[in-house]
């Protein structure tokens, strides 16, 4: 037990010599306060604002990027809607134009047909009238000429003078009627 006793006595002796570790050293209190305040001021003014600035910038960069992407997507969707609408409009318009053209074509054809029909009718009527007139003229001419010829021929053949105008004409008419009937 001797060694233990020696150790204890040595420790006690040391403890007696040493100051109480719980009693603060005044110099250290002052230095500690100054050091802490100094560090606080430096960190608060130089470091914390810079880190916060970096964080804000980072948040903004991320948010900004996301917002930009969202905006781009909205724009794209808007453009797509616009183009789709325009395409539909164009299709509708084309359809309308085709329809109009068809209707117009039909109308034009109908119009031309009517005009042609009219023209044809007119030409037909005109031709008929012209033919009729010529026929009448020919009949008249023939009648005169054939009458004269026939009379002359008959008088020559019969030797009978047909001077009497009335008789002559009666004979001619009868002759012609017979001729027409025989036809």
């Amino acid at each position, binding site marked *: 037990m001797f060694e233990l006793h020696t150790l204890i006595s040595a*420790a006690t002796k040391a403890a007696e010599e040493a100051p109480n570790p719980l009693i603060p050293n005044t110099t*250290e209190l002052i230095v500690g306060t100054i050091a802490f305040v100094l560090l606080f001021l430096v960190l608060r003014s130089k470091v914390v604002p810079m880190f916060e600035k*970096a964080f804000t910038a980072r948040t903004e960069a991320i948010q900004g990027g996301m917002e930009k992407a969202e905006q781009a997507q909205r724009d794209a969707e808007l453009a797509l809607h616009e183009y789709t609408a325009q395409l539909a409009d164009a299709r509708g318009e084309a359809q309308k134009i085709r329809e109009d053209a068809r209707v117009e074509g039909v109308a034009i054809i109908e119009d031309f047909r009517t005009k042609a029909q009219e023209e044809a009718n007119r030409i037909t009527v005109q031709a008929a009238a012209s033919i009729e007139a010529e026929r009448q003229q020919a009949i008249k001419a023939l009648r005169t000429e054939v009458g004269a010829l026939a009379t002359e021929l008959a008088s020559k053949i019969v030797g009978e003078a047909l001077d009497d105008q009335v008789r002559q004409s009666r004979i001619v008419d009868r002759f012609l009627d017979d001729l027409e009937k025989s036809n």
Partner: protein
Amino acid sequence: MRSFFIASSPGFVPPSTNDFNLPPSIGDSPYSTKPIFLVFLSVILISAFFIAASRKAAVVPGKLQFAGESVYVFVRKSIGEEIIGHEFMRFVPFLFTLFTFVITNNVFGIVPLLQFPAMSHVAFAYVLAIFSFIVFHAVGIKKQGLIKYLSGIAFMPGVPKFVYILLTPIEIATFFIVRPLTLSLRLFANMFAGHLLLLVFISGGHYMLTNDHLLLKILSPFSFAMGIGMSFFEFMVQCLQAYIITLLTALFIAGALADEH
């Protein structure tokens, strides 16, 4: 075995509190002791490191900025935001200073050549506790008014009247004596004991190695190995104590900010 101890024990002086009182290095000036140099060194190192790390404030951080930010974000988020809540930003500079100051000075205890934790001098721990004490009481008084704050401490609401006989002295003692005292003594005692522990193993190893007895010489590496092992353990304790004092300060602030005491 017995003979070794008998022969050796008078020669071995166990480390004592005397080993914590290092003499001034420049004349008799009390401002030239090792702990005071270390404290100022820590202020310079912390300032230089974080100013360099935060100087660019880049959106995409470099290695240095990332390292600085990691420490800052740890205090800001894990201690500030999660404990104090939405008003935390006001206290981040204070908590950040507290954490970096304590952890740096603590870790100095195992940094080669420096090898002394300034917080093993109780004065520095007292200073920190006083700042913490001032801050959390000031916050409470500012938030709730002096009368309401003090009455909130002395008469905890929602407690039967007769319990106040017991509770009021306890609460007052807690807020004005126990909290600052435990805050400073916990830090001081951990650093003090840790340093003493390292002293025991290292100086013991040294004594054994320089002893005439062969067996002690042979066994001395075990003492040094323990010293190295305890250094790692100390590193953990040093970081943990820095975290604890910051966390508790944040908790006290959060408590003072809360409506009910």
